[in-house]
């Protein structure tokens, strides 16, 4: 057992952390006020910076970093901006899919650029109820039709992984915005995560060559992809808790009432203590889940769901605590606490929802111990 990050994991996290050096807590809140064009520009600027720090580095080259190290870096990123963390995570997941399951041609075309942070990618997995994306085999390749209503990065992504049913079996395709029959929406207005570009795509008889299909993609890989995405989200949740704790603590120390800092009030102190406890607990649960995924433990997928439910639900509690401690100041737009409060709601919904996560955990328990 070892509860310390390895040197490789520390170096990786430090490099990512240095991208934010000099920034105040919640300093990226302004991203949510940018228009679509400005947000894309700002996002690309961050991609380039994180690319230099090695954030998108190939898994094969960063084995020592592993999922644990990646989670540590995600916590650091999300402690500054949950939106940015999720945008980066999506592209990193795309790169990982390409590395593991893409064709040689796909890799040659995209991987270097992805690793350098020059490309924004989207994962279009969530189907429209009425028009799920279906693929048909043709002589020249495939034709895809259907809708994906929500995909992170979709409005300004350069490349997409689009899941589809092919002969009623899961398949995945690489698509580009200029593909014939491909269209995408602008940014969808959302309650939170406004520094993230969320949109949908529509495919109308989009014709693709044979080499656009991810050759190794199947139902098992889809489950793995979804689980690893959930792991990233759980790390993002734990990281965002850090932001809430930092904001609330700073306010409690500086805000004076009745001649003393509000942080001297027992009610405030105890609330901070509870927030801190939830933050640390979320972090360790995420790390253990990451380790179990890294070592292919038989309970890994259940642990990831446990981490996702815990981190996302407690982020809501911690963000709410930060706003309460910051009182009127926290309620103001731009305070950091206000946007975090809105952002927090998203984590229990995106990826596997908390309700579905609990069902998966319970199904696993019933299978192991039910008679």
């Amino acid at each position, binding site marked *: *057992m070892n509860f310390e990050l390895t040197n490789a994991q520390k170096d990786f996290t430090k490099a990512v952390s240095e991208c934010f050096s000099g920034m105040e807590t919640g300093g990226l809140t302004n991203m949510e006020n940018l228009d679509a064009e400005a947000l894309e520009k700002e996002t690309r600027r961050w991609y380039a910076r994180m690319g230099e720090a090695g954030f998108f580095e190939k898994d094969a080259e960063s084995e020592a970093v592993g999922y644990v190290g990646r989670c540590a870096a995600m916590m650091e990123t999300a402690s500054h901006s949950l939106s940015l963390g999720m945008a980066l995570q999506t592209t990193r997941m795309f790169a990982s899919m390409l590395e593991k399951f893409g064709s040689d041609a796909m890799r040659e075309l995209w991987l270097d650029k992805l690793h350098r942070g020059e490309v924004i990618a989207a994962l279009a997995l969530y189907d429209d109820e009425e028009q799920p994306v279906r693929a048909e085999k043709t002589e020249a390749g495939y034709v895809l039709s259907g809708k994906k209503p929500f995909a992170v990065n979709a409005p300004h992504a350069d490349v997409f992984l689009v899941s589809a049913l092919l002969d009623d079996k899961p398949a995945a395709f690489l698509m580009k915005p200029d593909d014939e029959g491909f269209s995408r929406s602008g940014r969808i207005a959302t309650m939170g995560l406004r520094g993230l570009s969320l949109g949908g795509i529509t495919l109308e008889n989009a014709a693709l060559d044979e080499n656009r299909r991810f050759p190794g993609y199947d139902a098992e890989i889809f489950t793995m992809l979804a689980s690893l995405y959930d792991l990233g989200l759980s790390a993002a949740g734990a990281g965002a808790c850090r932001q809430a704790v930092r904001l609330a603590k700073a306010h409690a120390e500086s805000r004076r009432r009745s001649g003393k800092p509000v942080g001297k009030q027992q009610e405030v102190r*105890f609330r901070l203590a509870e927030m801190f406890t939830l933050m640390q607990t979320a972090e360790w649960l995420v790390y253990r889940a990451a380790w179990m995924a890294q070592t292919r433990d038989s309970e890994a997928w259940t642990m990831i769901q446990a981490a996702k439910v815990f981190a996302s639900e407690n982020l809501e509690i911690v963000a709410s605590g930060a706003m309460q401690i910051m009182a009127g100041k926290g309620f103001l737009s731009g305070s950091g606490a206000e946007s975090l409060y809105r952002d927090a709601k998203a984590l229990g919904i995106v990826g596997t929802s908390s309700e579905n996560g609990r069902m998966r955990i*319970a199904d696993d328990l019933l299978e192991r111990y039910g008679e």
Partner: protein
Amino acid sequence: MNFTLTEEQILFKREVIRFAKKEIVPRVREHDLKAEFDFESWRKLGEFGLLGLHFPEEFGGSGADVVTSVLAGEALGEAGVDGGLTLSLGAHTYLCADTIYSHGNDEQKKKYVPKLASGEWIGCMGLTEPGAGSDVASLKLKAERKDDGWLLNGTKMFITNGSIADVAVIYGKTSPEGGHAGISAFLVEKGTEGFSVSRNLHKMGVRTSPTSELIFEDCWIPKENLLGFEGGGFLMALQTVEWDRSALVAPFVGSMQYLIEKSARYATERRQFGRPISAFQATKHKLADMKIFMEAARSLVYRIAWAKDQGRPLNHLEAAVAKLFVGDWSLKPVNDAMLLHGGYGYTHEYDVERVFRDGRLAPIGGGTSDIQKTIISRMM
């Protein structure tokens, strides 16, 4: 990072569960209902080596590391051993025997530790008083020098194993004005004149573990019974915190696994409205919440144990986080387990209500949750 247990640790934990299910669990209900200490189980715990696991072999132990000691506690809870017996074990091994082992001189160690490790003797630790608990500096038990020894006068309250202990580590004031530096620790054996047990307290849970009030009336002990150095008691008490936050709370984590397995079985067997209740979402969500709590708590407890194994000074912040989380956040999932069992869960037959009662001590014993919040808010 690496969270994998060694093969040896995994096998050991499995063996403790097997032993406990066979040798101890069959007597748990009887003793819990009678609120009686189970001497037979105690003897078996000693024979198996669980009462002094971490001591070197020369002192009757196995030289186990702290993580392994934590796993033993977790395994007992997981097997279904009651919180009373595991609490008695914790007070005996970690709060009494370990304090003697860590701070005693050679003679004291040789005299007491092997007997405690084997279970031949039972130990307890007396810190809390009717008017002093977490506020250690306000201890009132007076220890005065007299006739080449010490004269103890005062009362100790809520002392686990108090009425059955053969030896007690007792904290008292050797310098009333000295604050923390005026606290010293003493060894007091059963039968010492002036030392008596006034009563055992009736409790909601952990009923097999006697909780006593101890009286010291002109209780004279020889100077050799001073543990460590005069004025060193506060630091000794502080060092027991590491055990309080790891090995002593580990059985609570194990108990949650016990409830998970029990609840999953019950939910599969119990049918309502034509299907097993495990088919209902509300049941599944309760099961999931138990698992989420258990894994989260386990992460924190292992961390404290691992840090102690590295020989690091106690990080009070991390320790308080573990204690607060296990204490406060365990209440809902334990309650869920009882709800899931419905009326049966409320009866003694299903053992769930016993875990419910035992678990209620978690946010109280060893420093209440409010104390932990005070520590965390001060140090974060």
